């Protein structure tokens, strides 16, 4: 069941209605069933893999809690290793079967007919499972005694496909807490849904249509100006697509009385890279900070608590970003993307050692703008290997470096990107994600009506087949 489809729309609407009509004791069970129904609609094997992961972690969490008194670190590590192994089997399985088949056919043997495919959103589930076990070990959370609740946490459909990555200790209590879907909650949910659809369907959709069609396939067919602008458009597309998706899911989740983590917070207004990662894919960044960066950094600082502990300035950010790259996909280009971003943070850490900060904390406007521009430009450059494989990344970068010609950019994507920045600016300036709720009623109704019409247009733009031209 595709997210942006009438089927999903019907599924969500009917789920919300049934959920709100059901007696309290059946509400979580219904959420679980609806979530598995949604997952099975993609592929029943995905649901089977998720169920196995759920059963294992539920059982292991009980075991871990019973053995909290024991100091043996391997009790936790074993659970984490099982989760990672399970993930790697799927993550690397498809490629491994492919390689094995090549070897088998070269040796004259018959090839293996099955392949392994990473279940949708599985990387999120594995990271959630790991944090769940770690939190229990660190006594930050208690193991869930209710399998139904735990299974709902793992399978909850609004976060199933692309997050946000939720911590058990924050999510699970919401499943037992009384909640009210009142006027304020509905306003927030509707705002998030409209904002999500505006970003993911209207803005990201328009950018998909307006980006030169084969710029990421044959970059050298385009001028350097187009290659640079193509990258900027891609950056805005990625942001609007992902941030819009998360907002949409958060809005839907609000109707089930569950608040999901905000995943993006005006990242293009970041002043530095550390700030950028506090604003971009927040749930993953925070997970990496808490479960990779901090433990590593703590271990370095235990040995040498100095501010100028160079290994501590280099290794934890680099490892954290490499893990982030690997989490996005086990490919060399994504590892490179991680390494480049790790490099940016590392350089920033080293610079901070030598550059004194303004004690008043006030930064002049031009410095803010310059900071945002530098961060955005470098983040976009790093996004080349995020979007393309290594050989094409090289060609793309060459296309920028050789700089063959200046030409006038197409103004239309800039209008779309301007709207995207304007939405961000309202939120950034007011410091309130829901600033739009305070706008006048007539303005809101007009904007919603225009959004609905724009969605119809852009949705169709994206679905249209290529023009048939009679030869």
């Amino acid at each position, binding site marked *: 069941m595709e997210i942006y489809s009438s089927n999903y729309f019907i599924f969500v609407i009917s789920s919300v209605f049934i959920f*709100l009509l059901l007696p309290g004791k059946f509400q979580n069970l219904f959420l679980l069933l609806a979530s598995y129904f949604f997952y099975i609609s993609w592929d029943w094997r995905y649901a089977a893999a998720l169920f196995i992961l759920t059963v294992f972690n539920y059982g292991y969490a009980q075991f871990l809690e019973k053995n909290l008194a024991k100091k043996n670190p391997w009790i936790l590590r074993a659970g984490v290793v099982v989760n990672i192994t399970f993930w790697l089997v799927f993550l690397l399985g498809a490629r491994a079967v492919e390689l094995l088949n090549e070897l088998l056919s070269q040796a004259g043997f018959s090839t293996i007919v099955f392949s392994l495919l990473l279940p949708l959103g599985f990387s999120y589930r594995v990271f959630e499972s790991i944090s769940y076990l770690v939190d229990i070990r660190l006594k930050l959370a208690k193991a869930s005694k209710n399998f139904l609740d735990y299974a709902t946490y793992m399978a909850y459909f609004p976060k199933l496909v692309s997050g946000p990555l939720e911590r058990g200790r924050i999510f699970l209590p919401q499943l037992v807490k*009384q909640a*009210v*879907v009142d006027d304020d909650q509905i306003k927030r949910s509707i705002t998030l849904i409209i904002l999500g659809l505006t970003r993911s369907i209207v803005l990201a959709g328009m950018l998909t249509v307006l980006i030169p069609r084969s710029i990421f396939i044959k970059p050298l067919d385009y001028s350097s100006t187009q290659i640079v602008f193509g990258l900027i458009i891609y950056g805005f597309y990625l942001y609007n697509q992902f941030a819009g998706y998360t907002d949409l899911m958060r809005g839907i989740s609000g109707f089930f009385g569950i608040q999901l983590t905000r995943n993006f917070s005006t990242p293009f207004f970041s002043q530095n890279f550390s700030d950028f990662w506090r604003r971009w894919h927040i749930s993953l960044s925070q997970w990496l900070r808490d479960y990779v960066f901090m433990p590593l950094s703590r271990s370095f600082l235990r040995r040498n608590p100095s501010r100028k502990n160079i290994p501590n300035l280099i290794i934890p950010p680099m490892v954290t970003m490499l893990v982030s790259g690997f989490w996005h996909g086990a490919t060399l280009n994504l590892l490179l993307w991680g390494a480049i971003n790790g490099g940016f943070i590392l350089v920033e850490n080293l610079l901070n050692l030598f550059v004194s900060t303004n004690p008043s904390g006030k930064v002049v406007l031009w410095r803010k703008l310059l900071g945002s521009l530098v961060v955005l430009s470098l983040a976009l450059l790093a996004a080349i290997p995020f979007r393309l494989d290594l050989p094409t990344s090289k060609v793309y970068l060459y296309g920028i470096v050789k700089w063959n010609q200046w030409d006038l950019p197409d103004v239309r994507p800039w209008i779309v990107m301007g709207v995207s920045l304007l939405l961000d600016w309202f939120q950034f300036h007011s410091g309130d994600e829901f600033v739009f709720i305070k706008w006048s009623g007539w303005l809101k109704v007009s904007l919603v*009506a225009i959004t609905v*019409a724009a969605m119809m247009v852009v949705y169709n733009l994206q679905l*249209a*087949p290529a023009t*048939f031209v009679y030869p």
Partner: protein
Amino acid sequence: MNKAIIQIERRVNLQISGRFGLRLIITAVLILVFLLLCEMICRSPWVQHRIPFQAYGSNHIQFDYQIGTLKAYVDRNGAPDCFILGTSMPLRAINPAVLGEAYQELTGESLACYNFSVVGATISATTVFAEFLIQHYQPDLFIVGTNFLDFSEAREKADDSRFVDNSWFRYQLGRADLDGWLVEYSYAYRIVKLLSYGAYAGLDYQEVRKESIKWSEQLTMMGYGYEEKVYDVHERVRLEKNLSFLKDFGDFSLSRRNINGLDSLIRLAKQNQVQVVVVHMPYHQSLVEFLDDQGKPLPQKQSMHRLISELDVQLNSIALEQSCLLWRLPDSMQLSDESWLDRYHLNRTGSQAFSRWLAEKIASAVESGQLHAPNTE
């Protein structure tokens, strides 16, 4: 504090105040009013005069014109007796006006035909068109124009989704489809569909405009694709062109998908009491000479001729099995050199001769009892 109008005791409770509930309803109504206003504006003559054609979501402009022209034809004349189906070959070769006139001259009876050929459509997709035409217009006769060009490897692999998965078609065939319903009834939504046609070219509408102008000039009100240009049949076909043509045929095996498509089309027609005539579409002999630049035959020539013979056997077998008529222009009736638009499309001159011949064949088939007169109720 507003009093809650809905209060249900659950773990997660819904509590909407009356005032807020009313606001939600008013918002929904205002959005609906806005959309209706858009629809009214799009229906206005001012807007409609600026719309080149009604778009049905296929992004195939000739197809959209074909639908629009057919609707206009039916509004004017009622449903036609027969439909011509196929690709660009029958579109260019069969002129229903000439066919009707000749038939009337020969029999004294009228024959109202509409040419519903769609360029680039496969025979397999034509089955969907046939299903739609049967459901909506209950014709008496289908004339399916085809030849070996419809059964190449390229046609086997051709993507028909623009027709087969078209939401408007799905709706027309009785399936529940919101998108198809909107296309059918909303002028505004058809404009949205038209806007989507430029999406593939980054919202550049040059190609759409060009195609639109071409079909508005070439498609007659009976769906025939009119073209005056004359091809120089004596022009030597260059090796490069021959090789590119042959590439479409891959390993020279017949497209099973399209053979089966033709079979299902005839079966479907028969089930619905629609008679079917399959007509071999003519092509110029130079098309199958396959010479290199020195004038020597290419090695692929034999494979190609084998494919053509195999197709003949297959078509004969289908015609026999389904007891439908299969006609081919006799060798004795050569089309003049001025009849060709290119090596496998006829121009206006060629189509006149071909349409007359077809009318004669239909008249004689009716007379001999092989066909029931298509214009009788």
